[in-house]
């Protein structure tokens, strides 16, 4: 499978509702922090991957090119990749094949999102994902698809709102220990159930916020990794998969595309029993039910069983399978592409024992980050190990 690929450095900005900094400036802070974290200079970098979501947010055409100088891509081979919400994790898969193929020895992966520019609300930028002829004339808003999927999931397996709300409680609390977090807070299940109903069954506290922010990592091969750090973290598996865009023809109760992406990554990493072999996991949680949905898609529990793991406390930081120890999108924030890379960075820090107050109780050797996006359609998975 080509050269072994390592992540050797990571950096990120704070996630905030509205940043004074431009996208370019945010990209710079994250990229610089990642380089500094492993003593690398821009001249050490052979190629740059930028992950960023729709141009519509920024009102800037060819946003990748616009961001490139801030992301350290000046005078270098550069590629922007984009699969909606799945971008942050996908960008690591792109960086992986840059290095694994041997075309580059080092690569900087930068994910940036500035959602706040879109007025009056960034949700408007998402409206164009609905089919222009058969769906948009019905006047949809973005929450519809989540609400429809959440309801289908609850209905199929008989899952209660009270159980799902525990995800929001856990993640927002975990985020209290994350120095970059936007909406960390201590809340109760009752707070979630009492929050404003937006699109039943989705309520205000079920949803991650609108955010600005950026993240970056430095990737290299097995020959150079130890020049940058004593503790390289290896990318042992990557996977991604797309389901059909005819989303009303699928059973929304189960994310089959996440399963396919996970199987691809498990196979590459030589993992036969993920429930035993994955120590810590950061599934994508833009909505609380998505964390549960994705744990099932990742084959880390049976279908409809994820809420039980949560109720039993197994997904807490001191549990058998810590889930979203970072605080996730629900707590740290959701600058789309950057949020996915934040999850990869959390696993990187957890495996190196550098997660500070967020450090999980068990000794972790192998972790997984997953993201999801497009029209409830794409699954992206990265497996890291030390």
């Amino acid at each position: 499978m080509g050269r072994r690929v390592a992540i050797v450095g990571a950096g990120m900005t704070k996630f905030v509702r509205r940043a004074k900094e431009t996208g370019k400036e945010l990209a710079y802070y994250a990229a610089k922090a990642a380089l500094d974290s492993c003593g690398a200079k821009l001249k050490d970098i052979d190629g740059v991957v930028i992950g960023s979501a729709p141009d519509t947010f920024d009102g800037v055409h060819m946003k990748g090119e616009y961001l490139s100088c801030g992301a350290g891509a000046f005078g270098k081979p550069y590629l922007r990749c984009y699969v909606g919400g799945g971008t942050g994790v996908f960008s690591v898969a792109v960086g992986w094949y840059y290095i694994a193929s041997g075309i580059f020895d080092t690569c900087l992966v930068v994910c940036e999102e500035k959602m706040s520019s879109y007025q009056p609300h960034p949700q408007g930028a998402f409206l164009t994902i609905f089919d222009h002829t058969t769906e948009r004339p019905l006047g949809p808003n973005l929450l519809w698809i989540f609400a429809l999927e959440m309801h289908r999931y609850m209905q199929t397996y008989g899952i209660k709102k009270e159980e799902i709300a525990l995800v929001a409680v856990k993640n927002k609390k975990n985020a209290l220990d994350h120095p970059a977090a936007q909406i960390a807070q201590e809340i109760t299940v009752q707070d979630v159930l009492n929050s404003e109903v937006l699109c039943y069954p989705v309520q205000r506290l079920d949803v991650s916020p609108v955010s600005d922010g950026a993240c970056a990592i430095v990737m290299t091969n097995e020959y150079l990794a130890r020049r940058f750090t004593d503790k390289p973290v290896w990318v042992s598996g990557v996977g991604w998969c797309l389901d059909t865009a005819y989303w009303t023809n699928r059973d929304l109760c189960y994310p089959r595309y996440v399963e396919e992406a996970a199987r691809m990554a498990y196979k590459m990493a030589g993992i036969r029993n993920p429930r035993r072999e994955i120590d810590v996991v950061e599934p994508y949680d833009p909505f609380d039910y998505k964390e549960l949905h994705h744990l099932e898609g990742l084959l880390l529990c049976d279908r409809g069983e994820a809420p039980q793991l949560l109720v039993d406390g197994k997904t807490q930081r001191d549990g058998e399978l810590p889930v979203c120890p970072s605080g996730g999108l629900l707590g740290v924030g959701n600058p789309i592409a950057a949020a996915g890379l934040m999850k990869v960075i959390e696993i990187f820090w957890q495996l190196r024992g550098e997660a500070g107050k967020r450090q999980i109780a068990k000794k972790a050797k192998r972790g997984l980050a997953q993201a999801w996006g497009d029209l409830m359609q794409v699954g992206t998975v990265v497996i890291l190990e030390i």
Partner: protein
Amino acid sequence: MKNFFATPLKDEDFKKRNFCYEAWIGNCFYAWDCGKAIGRYLEGLKEGKILGVKCSKCERIMVPPRIFCEWCFVLVEDFVELKDTGRINTFSISYITWDMKRLEKPQIPAVIEIDGASPGYGILHLVSEVDPKEVKVGMRVKAVWKDEKEREGKITDIKYFKPY
């Protein structure tokens, strides 16, 4: 990592222009061609019919129609008339607009599995003429059409679906 940069601004700063910013209203205007399959679908709607397509290979009956089967990757040319009734696969009760304003009367978007299509094949539409509290997954619904004269070959030629 110790220093996490980014300067958070408050909504108030933005409204009061406590810092400088530039604004622009884009003028985007699009006209989308309907395509072959959806073109036929829209013509059907104008006639008060819901059309699907049948793949000659896997025999799936799909709606909305498409000119290819994405499983078999063959051309699909066989249009079939479906019923204008179906079953609610999942639904939501939406209290907000896209820009987060409250709606006075909630909307009920739903995925409706259309009778005559393969099981599980639905379309996105709205449900109405029902108390939101009464709507259930699995409920039988029927299309409420616009008057024939008012139909113009759009998805909105079906005003909504109602329980029957």
